[in-house]
């Protein structure tokens, strides 16, 4: 096989090349295992959950009786809780996402434009906090904000307060702060990559054509960083809507999100069809929110940003 390189292997070239195996078939074989994983572990389950969402739970059994009851419930009096939870989840994720992106952008800008040497050190510095367990990162905020937490015990120790402040933990604001911290790296890195890619001569050209630094930022830098900023936004928003850990640990009763109630349906409440319907509604809500977001940015700018 190896020594044959230039020797005369008997030549029997097929005259008809359509008979030869097309090259892309090899490529398809390579990607097939991955496709099967995605089909088996995602597409089939997603179809499954949509189907189950139209079924009914009676006692311990799920009846494949097709109906819209699970969805109808959401529009009745007793479904008000779910409606509120979905809206609240979207709202909390949105605030957290805005907080994350707004805080991350200047940091990314700093890394892209102010750091000249050893950018990698900064990237590592930024990611190290994310090497602890996600759970413990969330828990750290419980430690900080809790009834006997760092802030309360600290303030008490120095004598600022007598009684612990109770408004710190177990509310939507605590969830937002915690999410903003937990997802920071997911926002900084894509924005940084976008900014880093910008050809510095564009900026010089803009200034040469009369832009002030501030104007230059809004006319050149920001539009060109849109791809990273948009992916940062989506990368944070989508998973946080369905988050379970954060609201459970720091949300309290006022801070629970739709994810908590889905878990309840599959667990304690033992109503998988309703849980399935809630999951579908959540995905739908996320999809709509994302579409609305992209529509707000506008097709023209999306095209210009090459997404």
């Amino acid at each position, binding site marked *: 096989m*190896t*020594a*044959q*390189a*230039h020797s005369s*292997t008997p*030549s029997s*070239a097929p*005259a008809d090349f359509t008979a030869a195996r097309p*090259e892309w078939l090899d490529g398809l074989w390579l990607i097939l295992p991955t496709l099967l994983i995605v089909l088996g572990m995602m597409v089939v389950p997603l179809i499954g959950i949509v189907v189950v969402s139209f079924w009914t739970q009676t006692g311990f059994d799920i009846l494949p009786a097709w109906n819209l009851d699970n969805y109808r419930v959401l529009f009745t009096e007793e479904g008000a809780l779910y409606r509120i939870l979905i809206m609240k989840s979207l709202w909390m994720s949105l605030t957290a996402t805005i907080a994350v992106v707004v805080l991350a952008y200047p940091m990314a800008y700093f890394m892209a434009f102010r750091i000249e040497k050893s950018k990698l050190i900064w990237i590592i510095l930024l990611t190290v906090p994310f090497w602890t367990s996600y759970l413990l990162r969330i828990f750290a905020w419980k430690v900080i904000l809790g009834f006997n937490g760092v802030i309360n015990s600290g303030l008490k120790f120095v004598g600022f307060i007598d009684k612990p402040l109770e408004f710190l933990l177990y509310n939507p604001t605590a969830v937002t702060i915690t999410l903003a911290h937990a997802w920071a790296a997911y926002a900084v890195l894509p924005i940084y990559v976008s900014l880093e890619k910008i050809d510095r001569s564009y900026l010089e050209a803009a200034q040469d054509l009369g832009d002030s630094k501030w104007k230059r930022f809004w006319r050149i830098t920001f539009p060109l960083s849109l791809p990273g900023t948009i992916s940062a936004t989506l990368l944070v928003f989508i998973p946080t809507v369905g988050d379970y850990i954060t609201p459970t640990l720091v949300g309290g009763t006022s801070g629970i999100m739709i994810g908590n109630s889905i878990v309840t349906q599959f667990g304690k409440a033992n109503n998988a069809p309703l849980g399935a319907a809630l999951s579908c509604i959540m995905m739908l809500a996320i999809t709509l929110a994302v579409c609305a977001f992209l529509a707000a940015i506008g097709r023209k700018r999306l095209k210009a940003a090459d997404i």
Partner: protein
Amino acid sequence: MAAPMISLKSVSKRFGTFAAVDSASFDIAPGEFFSLLGPSGCGKTTLLRMIGGFERQTEGDILIDGEAMGIRPPNQRPTNMVFQSYAIFPHLDIAENIAYGLINRGLDKASIAKKVAQALDMVRLSGLGNRRANQISGGQRQRVALARAIVCEPKVLLLDEPLGALDKKLREEMQIELRQLQKSLGITFIFVTHDQEEALSLSDRIAVMARGQVLQIDTAAALYERPNCREVAGFIGNMNFFEGRIVSIAGGVAAIEIAPGQHVRVPATNGAAPGETAIVAVRPEKIDAVATAPQGSDNVVSGRALAGSYLGDRSLLLADWREGTAPISVSLQNRRSAVDADIFTKDAELWLTWPIEAGVLLKN
């Protein structure tokens, strides 16, 4: 020609209706330095890559040393390639790069080492064997790529614009080296380039390509002196064109009316017939420009000077001869002390003359 080393049998590469290479058929002799010349996108690289086995032809077949290649992969073909980017493996040093193909031929370590040393010596890189690609210059990288391909002793060496990335001076040096190497090794070279000067100076024969088609295959001199179509004439060197109609053919000379009442004469070609439209092509250096009406010249066209430029060894003159046609360019050797200085003044009246055999008759 002896049994050809390479024989292309109506080789095509089509993507839907677009033909990157359209039914190329020609032979290349053993030991020939053969160039594929054309503007970018003309299909020359695709053709080379099909010979090397990197792309499959959609029709036809390629014979190398009498053997049909079909869709054999590159590792089963008696060819080696010098890539445009050189493709020196960055994770291996220079010696390992050169040994790369030898290892596949099942040679023992000692003879590989010997061959590598010889190859390094041949391309004057002895002592650099343990450097990496990013530690040597562009010209050295080019020579490594060459050595790496040549040690495999291919029947045909394929070179894809190998000098394109080098600066002008280095390129000229490498051209000479390449030519010497080819002569001493006696390997068939197929050389792809868009640089006509490079092709003219290096090649035994050149195939000029455009839009996937091979327009003309000939020696450098023949391509320059006797192009077979307007495209070849225009691509190689500079050329002036006069469009007109053949009015008569007599004694091997055709008379063409290029403007009402104005005729030029040119050697007739096979198949040309009176009444057809035709093009007369004349090289700038074959035209003389004078300030007074000449007597007894074969062809005379009067005109006006548009612009002139002094280029040291020669002067270039642009002259208008008829409204609505491209100006004629004339290249005048500065050998004589006095090329008529007057004719370079803008709007100066002048006469352009050239002998019959200087023109080439082309089909329109």
